């Protein structure tokens, strides 16, 4: 749900309420994010089948739980051919290989989009917060207009009209997420600017720009760091959603949203595995990023 970030941005200003301790959940979230980041590097390499090449046997169901121990033993002892752990889809692609290869697309898009949004938003926010003048006031109004765009539809327009590619997806998401960082950084810079250290720096003759970049900026990055984890999660959801309606990456790329979309019709007819496994992957990944973001926020506040 790409809209909850607005909600979290809206809640951001008020005092936090103590949240229950959930250490185990935190370990789980770090584990999932770690595995997904590792798969973003290794996924396509360790996949047992080529994720974008058909095995020519469609709709092979995944092995039943009862058959799993036997199959595991077989594959560990190196006998028999490679197994379709998650079955194959309507085009004969191996679902397991595609699920573990997809982080190379989904996570790379999300992390890079967030990175570029930071690169764009943080400097603008710093300038807008530190130097308050008509020019920065206009900057904030422009940022308001961008933020009032309906996120999903705007992303769809940008990507579809610019051409459906990973690069365009990254640019579109970065542009749409940048205003959050402008706003967060600006608010934080404004409160940091009132601190004694700024006054002291001025007194010993440090230039305004140097104060802004070397002293105020490092102290203002906390909220952006917290938001990054949340934004990466939502960027994954948005990427998958765009591919689901046909406005994201193009088939046969291994991407979770696209896999769910191609399996959608099969699901109604009872072939659940092409859609269910990539869905579990998205569900766990985005949830884990949300848990991490929450933990970071608590750490930062205390």
């Amino acid at each position: 749900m790409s809209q909850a970030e607005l909600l979290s941005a809206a809640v951001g200003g008020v005092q936090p309420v103590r949240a229950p301790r959930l250490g185990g959940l935190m370990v789980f979230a770090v584990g999932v994010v770690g595995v997904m980041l590792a798969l973003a590097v290794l996924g396509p390499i360790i996949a047992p089948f080529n994720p974008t090449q058909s095995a020519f046997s469609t709709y092979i169901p995944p092995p039943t739980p009862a058959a799993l121990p036997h199959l595991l033993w077989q594959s560990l002892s190196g006998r028999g051919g490679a197994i379709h752990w998650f079955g194959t889809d309507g085009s004969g692609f191996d679902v397991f290989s595609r699920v573990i290869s997809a982080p190379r697309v989904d996570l790379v898009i999300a992390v890079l989009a967030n990175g570029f949004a930071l690169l764009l938003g943080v400097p603008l926010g710093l300038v807008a917060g530190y130097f308050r003048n008509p020019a920065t006031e206009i900057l904030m109004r422009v940022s308001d207009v961008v933020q009032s765009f309906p996120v999903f539809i705007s992303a769809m327009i940008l990507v579809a009209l610019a051409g459906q590619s990973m690069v365009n997806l990254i640019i579109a998401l970065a542009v749409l997420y940048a205003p959050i960082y402008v706003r967060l950084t600006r608010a934080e810079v404004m409160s940091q600017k009132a601190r004694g250290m700024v006054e002291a720096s001025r007194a010993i003759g440090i230039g305004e720009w140097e104060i802004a970049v070397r002293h105020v900026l490092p102290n203002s990055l906390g909220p952006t760091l917290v938001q990054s984890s949340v934004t990466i999660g939502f960027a994954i959801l948005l990427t998958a959603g765009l591919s689901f309606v046909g406005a994201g990456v193009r088939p046969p790329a291994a991407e979770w949203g696209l896999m769910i979309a191609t399996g959608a019709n099969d699901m109604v007819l009872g072939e659940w595995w092409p859609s269910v496994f990539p869905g579990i992957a998205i569900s766990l990944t985005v949830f884990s990023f949300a848990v991490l973001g929450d933990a970071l926020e608590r750490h930062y506040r205390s």
Partner: protein
Amino acid sequence: MVIRFVLRRLGISLLQLMGLVVAVFFLIRLLPADPVARLVGMNASPAAYAQAAHSLGLDQPLLTQFLRYVGLAHGSKGLLQGNLGTSWVTNTPVLTEIGQMLPVTIQLLTLSFVVTLLIAVPVGIASARRPGGWVDKIVFVYGLFGGSQPEFWWGLLFVFVFFFKLGIAPAPLGLVDPMLSPSPPITGFIIIDSVLWGEFGILADVLYHLMLPVLTLVFILSGPIMKMVRQNMIRALQSDFILYAQAGGLSIRTITRYAFRVALAPSITLVGILYGVMLGGAVLVESVFSLGGIGQYAVRSVLAFDYPAIEGVVLVITALSLLIYLLLDILYAAIDPRVAHP
């Protein structure tokens, strides 16, 4: 003073909308898409291509196109005359099409929000009563979980379970059974219309078809709303007058009621914001269940490069959400005078 505050807010919203109109108009024309080619096909002769471009007005300079769209050019009917243009694909006025699609989305969202609030508010209150208790732990995890889920996947999952496996839900193929023929729309909201015509069979059928889409949205929306009610309730319960009420020996029930009244105002604001955001965010659920709402209209227009329709959808959705925010601000200013007198 409240009137001055409202007028100022209205002015800001209008400026924001104008900025949006300009931004969207030029943005979609500056992106490297070729709507003419998409419309006439790749193998069209150069003459047919030029003619199509001419009939769409795309051979004119950008500024002329813009003035025509806004309605400032000589003899043109544009935005200022309340005309959103004509769809290039269907040749129907965009406003008419949006008028048919928008009620579907509003109906879906309103129903989902009502159900969500009925569930999420009591649960949020219960979890706020004992922070750190087991109810609170579950609500907290669910709050993070529900708010970070791919709703289209859950929709499909519900279809698989309730339609394919259990057979108690309809196929995800629209809002009304195609065998039924509802009377012509009065308000456009099929639930209200069916009641007005006295066609309760159709009402039942629509609710039957909305069962799974609403379930999907409730599942997603409950997370953030529970989390928010919990937060606002805990904050309210920490205030001094509650301590006083406790010292005065009032019952837990009464104290909860007092605290809830305080927690209500910030909660309403956030629910309103969420509603505005969901106007454009319900796309995926609409697509899964083929409901034919404004989100699906947006998808269709974008994929067909139908510029007037794209501009119309973005404008209408943004205008509606700005209107909701404005109403919330007015409501807030009416409740809390500190807002209007900063």
